């Protein structure tokens, strides 16, 4: 019997070995994939175990954290949710995060190794310094400009982007209708209901139109066309009549292009710009040619899918494979030319900044929870979109358009303001309600404030079609934003 018991005992070693090997497999080999499994809530629990870092505007926090004592403990709160939603995005226990909350998540949730003391060194050495208290993200926003844009749009659908063209700092980023991202924080049933409601809303409140909405730029694209034509030397005297017919027959077709404005036949570039003559710019675009047009558009930032501010900006597009008729329509911002409001603010800003395009950015600096600066955005190198001489002449055109032309509602006493209106047709056979555009820049005459460039788009479905014009609906909003940015 001894022998059999001994054998039974030896047989028990086998399951023991199996258990140990299996535990090793589970805890060492498969640990990574188990941790990465989307259904494993440990990552979320750890992430929400500490208060999330703040996002600040002009030194004042616009976010907070609420201790719920639950499993996913700290929930995000927003002081002025709808006003800043296009900047902050949301941070939800249930639906993840978006925009700045997503782009700066490593800092806000404390996983950025740079937040830990000597964390960067540790990261270089391949060590994980672990989770630090959430860092603080300082934005470049100007709260006055942001509020002016938000209140200017009111309950109309649209977007505003404003920036300082000399540095690329984004001063305002507004999209309406907006929403309160705070309703998505947490795991309760109401969070699910809010998400469903926001997703189903036909006005798409969670869409950030300022950076993710691409619109046909309409006449505001004439700034780009003028820049390309001036750079190409096609127009030497702004006041000399151009030999432009009215209506203009699109090359290679029988289609005739007309004007909303009067007096466009053989109009000077100054007049054509101020009153937005389609015929003059369509012909100019064709004469400039596709290569030069697309090169200039590219310098302004079109067709650049890599722009991050730090969240990604939808690329604005200028088609590079068009025939001459399509080029003619593209030169006046139609056909399949598309631009985000931020892109058009960059276009206006380049004119004010002597032809240089500074890539825009939204995060000024990042600090640890205690305030040690971890990194500061220096601003990338500027790109020259046109020669300084062209910029000077274009500035003159834009100033004329505001002082005498279609953009008179954007005038600001004591400041030089240049602008361009636009009314973009869209939809099948242009049946959709047109978008009203206004792009502009302003410089204080006293030189006591940095310049500001703004782009406003209003997709006003409610208004009478005739009333929609860049000069009528969009220009007053742009003026309010510029005044706020200039500190008036």
């Amino acid at each position, binding site marked *: 019997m001894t022998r059999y*018991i001994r054998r039974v*005992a030896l047989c028990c070693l086998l399951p023991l070995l199996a258990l140990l090997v299996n535990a090793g497999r589970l*805890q060492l080999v498969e640990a990574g994939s188990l941790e990465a499994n989307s*259904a*494993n809530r440990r990552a979320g629990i750890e992430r929400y175990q500490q208060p999330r870092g703040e996002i600040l505007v002009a030194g004042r926090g616009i976010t907070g954290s609420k201790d719920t004592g639950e499993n996913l403990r700290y929930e995000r709160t927003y002081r002025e949710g709808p006003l800043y939603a296009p900047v902050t995005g949301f941070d939800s226990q249930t639906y993840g995060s978006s925009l700045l909350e997503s782009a700066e998540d490593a800092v806000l949730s404390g996983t950025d190794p740079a937040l830990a003391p000597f964390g960067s060194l540790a990261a270089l050495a391949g060590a994980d310094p672990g989770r630090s208290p959430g860092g603080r993200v300082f934005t470049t926003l100007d709260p006055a400009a942001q509020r002016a844009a938000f209140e200017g749009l009111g309950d109309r659908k649209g977007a505003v982007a404003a920036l300082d063209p000399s540095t690329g700092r984004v001063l305002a980023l507004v999209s309406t209708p907006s929403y309160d991202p705070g309703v998505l924080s947490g795991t309760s049933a109401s969070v699910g209901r809010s998400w469903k409601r926001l997703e189903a809303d036909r006005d798409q409140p969670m869409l950030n139109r300022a950076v993710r909405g691409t619109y046909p730029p309409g006449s505001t694209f004439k700034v780009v066309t003028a820049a390309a034509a001036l750079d190409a030397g096609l127009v030497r005297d702004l006041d000399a009549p151009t030999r432009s017919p009215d209506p203009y027959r699109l090359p290679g077709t029988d289609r005739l292009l007309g004007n909303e404005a009067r007096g466009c036949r053989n109009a000077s570039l100054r007049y054509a710009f101020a009153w937005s003559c389609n015929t003059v710019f369509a012909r100019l675009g064709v004469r400039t040619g596709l290569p030069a047009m697309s090169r200039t558009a590219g310098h302004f930032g079109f067709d650049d899918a890599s722009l991050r501010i730090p969240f990604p900006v939808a690329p604005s597009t200028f088609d590079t494979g068009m025939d001459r008729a399509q080029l003619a329509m593209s030169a006046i911002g139609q056909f399949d030319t598309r631009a985000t409001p931020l892109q058009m603010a960059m276009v206006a800003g380049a004119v004010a900044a002597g032809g240089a395009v500074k890539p825009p950015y939204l995060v000024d600096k990042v600090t640890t929870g205690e305030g040690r600066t971890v990194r500061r955005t220096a601003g990338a190198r500027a790109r020259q979109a046109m020669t300084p001489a062209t910029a000077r002449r274009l500035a003159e055109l834009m100033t004329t358009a505001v002082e005498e032309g279609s953009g008179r509602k954007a005038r600001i006493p004591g400041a030089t303001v240049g602008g361009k209106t636009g009314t973009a047709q869209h939809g099948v056979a242009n049946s959709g309600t047109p978008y009203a555009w206004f792009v502009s820049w302003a410089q204080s005459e006293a030189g006591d404030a940095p310049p500001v460039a703004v782009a406003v788009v209003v997709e006003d479905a409610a208004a009478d079609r005739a009333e929609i014009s860049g000069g009528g609906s969009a220009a007053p909003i742009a003026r309010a934003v510029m005044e706020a940015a200039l500190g008036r």
Partner: protein
Amino acid sequence: MLATFPGMTGTTAGAAPEATRRPPRGRGTELGLLVLAVLLPVYGYCAVGLAKNGTLPPGAAGHGAGLGAFALLAHLVVRRRAPYADPLLLPIAVLLNGLGLVLLFRLDLETPEHRAAPAQLVWSTVGIVLFLAVLLLLRDHRVLRRYAHLSVCAALALMLAPVFFPAVNGARIWIRAGGLSLQPGEFAKVLLAVFFAAHLAAGQQALVHTGRRLGPLRLPTGRVLGPVLTVWLLSVTVLVLERDLGTSLLFFGLFVVLLYAATGRIGWIAAGLLLASAGAWLVGRYEPHVHARITEWLHPFASIEAGEGPGQLAQSLFAFGAGGATGTGLGLGHSVLIGFAAKSDFILATAGEELGLAGLSALLLLYALLVERAYRAGLGLRDAFGRLLATAFAAVLALQVFVIAGGVTGLIPLTGMPMPFLAQGGSSVVTNWVIVALLIRMSDSARRPRTAADTTTGTTADTAAETAADTAAETAADATADTTAAGNTAPGPAPATTAKGTPEAAPAPRPLAAHAEQDAP
């Protein structure tokens, strides 16, 4: 172990100078290990409190004192009533029980409205009291074989009882009375082990040497195997009715192991395994509850892909994965996500997450050591009943640990069963304390130096005769190689193999035995 704690064995020698002439009994070692076994859980308590609330838990000192007092009491009783007992058994039991309480205390912090630790503490106390009672009242384990038939009746009654109570979570294994709920299957474990051991020990000769030959198989006579098979079939039927597959598996395993240990007939084991596989296949295929368990084992993440969120097994695997090599630290894991049964069947997941592979391996090795000591006690005994009973307890512990640990780590399909000593469950804790008490009792007689007085007073005439018959039968059955193989093990003072060759009742081998005692280290 003795080498590891030289100071502790030394204190025994110092305290009792006459011990120099006696073989070491290991009581000092036991005391030293007990101190460790009490301090470790106290440390665990403090670690949990510091991790969860940043302060030492207010009850830590009281808890340590209580656990220490019980451990000391148990030690004193063992010292007095089972002085030659294996010094590892009690410390392992105290340590496992203490760690289980810490894990429950830790999990209670996540579910303040459903606290398990206080009840477990009460049950542990009951268990230790029963442990003491067994040691004080039962002077010789051989007495138990007289109650074999009473045991089997009680076991069957206990197993049948839950049929009259409502099912809980698909299994009818509970008796509810007042606020208490008991799992009688746990107690039945001990009783059935006693019956199997007694019956197989009595019929061993007949089993081995009678019966018809059928090819390579030798069929036993119905008179011998009949009652055992009937009891086993009945118990398995009851368990399948109650849908407690784990316990059913345990009883079957126990039966097969004991049959093999008693007869050495490998053919029966093969037949048994074949039967078990067929049964498992049938049950797995046609019983929805079990079928679901098998599906979950094969595809633990299927429910995630189906959008229903992770199932219990997936959560358990996540917990083990989160532990890694060294664990998150006590109180810092999230095994509570397992939800229902996190404190009972899945308690090992908490250990795996918070103590890591290192802690989990240590726990498994503790169990392995407990099982090994049980087998050793069995090997040291001279009576077939004792040997089979110790083997039965060792096998029960090993099987139980394997079934549940393998289940929660995804090695085998999950069957609900409490992890001995660790898991929430009063019946289980009490039963395990009784098993440890019986093992201590048996190891005491296994390691006790045999003197003339011992043989004459310790055993009654009839048991001595039986033992003699047992050993004679065994010598005939076992090859002579067995004797030599056994001779080089047994480091303890029990020269079982030397005494084995001849019946104990005969006076001739006694000087031999005495000689062996003096040679013992």
